[in-house]
């Protein structure tokens, strides 16, 4: 009887759900992929006993676009645009991760100005990502106004990204060797304005949620995980830090001059959904702190490396320098050659450890690019976190993991 009602055969479900579900004793409920609370195209098969989750099977891949395969067919510089399209809330962070990997593979130096601008913009991206997270997380838990407020501030950041790169989201602003172009006029003023405005706004969000009894009721003690379990299942980022372990790649293995910045790694102790909220709110403050320092010490100088074997010459040189024309032509047709070898560069994305594994084969195209996506790793913990909770809690748990399906499916 059960077989006729379902699109998949019972055999396909065997092993995924308990024997009770096959017998028809517990209920199987499909959630997603087109469900507003799954933050994208995440599909879940819920096995329910009444309203309690017995088991949960995530089904991902609906947003798989073959980014890694496509990057293998492009030269190193051209492949960069694919990284924007991966984690669409952390475009500059993914740009940075890929650029660092390329720079490490070909041993290319980045001037100090570019490094500091990279830190500044990556931190603004982290704030933008956390804002979107906060808005949708609160929306999932029926706190509508937070969403409207966070969207308002996110728009300011989007304008800043557009100012630099010409694009709100698909930035491709960081390039191997530095930046696409120098930061524009008015950039510093815009960031300063945001710095003045934002601390007050964080307090505003907190006044809506931190002591809100409905919010506390729905998040405290929901999706609890210990540090050991989190490491076992590969959780990183704010979720791991909410269990009490102050592990942050920016501190552990500093990159792009993070070692020169003074900031704290916020932690909480209970490892539940509420604590993840607390950690992310504090992270926004720390990011703001880093942005402030970056703006104060922004060094003068070139914004990209002068190594013409890897970095194209400025447009102005093309009119009078034959050598510049040759370099320009070589770099935009063949691209630069990278040596044989493999590098792995982990960075801290807003969601956790984002790693780029890059293999060069002596040619102008990467042999293999792999991104260790934090959303992919974090989603794996979803069944473990949800078992025994109610269906409504699954909504809170999903959003507390902050999965970006573009990131997990690539």
């Amino acid at each position: 009887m059960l077989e006729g009602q379902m699109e998949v055969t019972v055999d396909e479900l065997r092993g995924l759900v308990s024997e009770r579900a096959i017998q028809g004793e517990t209920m199987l409920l499909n959630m997603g992929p087109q469900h507003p609370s799954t933050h994208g195209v995440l599909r879940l098969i819920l096995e329910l006993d009444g309203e309690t989750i017995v088991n949960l099977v995530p089904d991902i891949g609906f947003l798989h676009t073959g980014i890694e395969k496509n990057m293998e067919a492009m030269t190193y510089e051209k492949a960069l645009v694919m990284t924007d399209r991966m984690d669409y809330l952390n475009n500059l962070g993914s740009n940075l991760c890929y650029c660092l990997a390329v720079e490490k593979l070909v041993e290319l130096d980045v001037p100090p100005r570019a490094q500091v601008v990279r830190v500044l913009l990556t931190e603004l991206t982290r704030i933008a990502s956390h804002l979107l997270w906060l808005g949708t997380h609160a929306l999932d838990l029926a706190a509508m106004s937070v969403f409207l407020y966070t969207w308002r501030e996110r728009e300011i950041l989007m304008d800043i990204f557009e100012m630099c790169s010409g694009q709100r989201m698909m930035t491709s602003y960081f390039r191997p060797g530095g930046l696409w172009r120098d930061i524009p006029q008015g950039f510093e003023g815009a960031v300063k304005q945001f710095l003045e405005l934002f601390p007050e706004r964080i307090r505003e969000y907190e006044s809506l949620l931190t002591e809100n009894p409905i919010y506390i009721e729905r998040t405290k003690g929901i999706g609890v995980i210990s540090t050991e379990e989190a490491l076992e299942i590969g959780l990183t980022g704010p979720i791991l830090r909410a269990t009490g372990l102050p592990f942050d790649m920016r501190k552990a293995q500093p990159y792009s001059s993070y070692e020169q910045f003074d900031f704290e790694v916020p932690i909480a102790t209970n490892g539940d959904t509420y604590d993840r909220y607390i950690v992310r709110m504090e992270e926004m403050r720390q990011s703001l702190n880093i942005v402030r320092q970056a703006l104060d010490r922004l060094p003068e100088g070139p914004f990209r490396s002068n190594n013409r074997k890897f970095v194209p010459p400025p447009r102005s040189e093309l009119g009078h320098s034959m050598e510049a024309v040759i370099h320009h032509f070589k770099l935009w047709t063949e691209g630069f050659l990278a040596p044989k070898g493999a590098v792995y560069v982990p960075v801290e994305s807003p969601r956790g450890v984002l790693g780029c594994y890059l293999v060069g084969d002596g040619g102008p195209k990467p042999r293999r690019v792999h991104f260790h996506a934090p959303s992919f790793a974090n989603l794996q913990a979803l069944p473990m976190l949800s078992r025994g909770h109610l269906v409504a809690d699954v909504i809170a748990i999903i959003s507390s993991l902050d999965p970006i399906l573009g990131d997990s499916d690539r």
Partner: protein
Amino acid sequence: MTEAETTLVALQQALEERFLDSVEFRDQLTAVLQPEAVVEACQFLKRRDFDLLIALTAADHWPEEPRFEMVYQLFSVKLNALIGLSVSLEGDEPKVPSIESVYPSANWHEREVFDMFGIDFPGHSDLRRILMPHDWEGHPLRKNYPLGYEEVQFSFNFDDIDRRKKYAKD
């Protein structure tokens, strides 16, 4: 000696001849192992506080042999050290033992590698496709899998592209 170096020396002593080589490239250490030693190496490293698996993937070196390379990146939060493990696999239907029993988080990563490269993981609890549809044919990240669009052939790359354009020639 850094923590990673000390650990690798100890790993070499533990695995003896199954530890083939250690490679240092751009300040990163990678141990090259025999395929059957992977689980033991992971157990060893986990006992030494390398508790976080932060990458598990493969690379296809087609048409060279050995064709596939499995790569594991293990991180120790306590020691703040990163160690890579690399395993070469021969042939078109490679196999490597699953490390899911040591690092539970390897579950999805191994599924992804199986999906994308067609590498089999004996001992895996639930080896299904994860990103591609369940009835998909072929393994997209293999080098002889077509790109999905017609690549333009010039004289300098004619042979190179010709080798993987099997569909256009039929």
